[in-house]
């Protein structure tokens, strides 16, 4: 059995958390931590608080490479983790739907899976070339990113 499964997916298909949990769980694991990003419908305090829909576009070949890089960085920084699944969905999504999942397994709950999942989503949002266009009641617009990559990203 592979003790360090790594699953990378950029897909239009719905995210199946049960399948991702099974895929990352090795015989050594008693803990799985999943971060799931969902389409938020209401952002209190925003100029236009209501989102109706999000549409995701990716530079697919580079996005898959960068997802692999995020997984490598997670393993370098969190030696106790075993399985990693990174899934980014693209296409149109409605409010409440999962858009992205970072799923990590490790032996015990203190073994780094929480920290690795947090690191993974932070890095994914910095370096994976995916963009979202937001549809609101007043129209649609691309969401502006703000991270400027540095050498090594």
């Amino acid at each position, binding site marked *: 059995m592979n003790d360090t499964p790594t699953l990378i997916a950029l897909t239009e298909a719905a995210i199946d958390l049960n399948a991702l949990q099974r895929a990352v769980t090795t015989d050594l694991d008693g803990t799985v931590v999943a971060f799931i990003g969902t389409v938020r419908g209401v952002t209190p305090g925003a100029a236009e608080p209501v989102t109706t829909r999000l549409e995701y576009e990716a*530079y697919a070949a580079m996005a898959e490479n960068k997802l692999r890089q995020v997984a490598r960085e997670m393993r370098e920084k969190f030696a106790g983790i075993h399985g990693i699944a990174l899934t980014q969905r693209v296409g149109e999504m409605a409010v409440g739907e999962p858009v992205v999942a970072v799923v990590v397994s490790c032996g015990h709950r203190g073994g780094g899976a929480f920290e690795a999942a947090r690191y993974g989503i932070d890095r994914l*949002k910095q370096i*994976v070339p995916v*963009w979202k266009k937001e549809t609101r009641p007043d129209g649609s617009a*691309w*969401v502006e990113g703000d991270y400027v990559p540095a*050498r090594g990203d």
Partner: protein
Amino acid sequence: MKIQLFATLRDRAKARSIEVALEGPTTVAELRKVIAAQHAALADLLPQALVAVNQEFAFDEDAVGPDNEVALFPPVSGG
């Protein structure tokens, strides 16, 4: 050479890619100037745009040539 566009840059150019006439290898900084000169519609987006060469982020002093896979896009907003 062909340059792939994404998100705001694709919308502005109304195309998934643009062609740029380039006289041999150059730098990313030079390439930005050439794009702005040949595709005026993208000019005001270029200062903030990111350049990827062969699917890696590229910086002003990096080399780039007609044989490379090149893409131009805004800072990412996925996840």
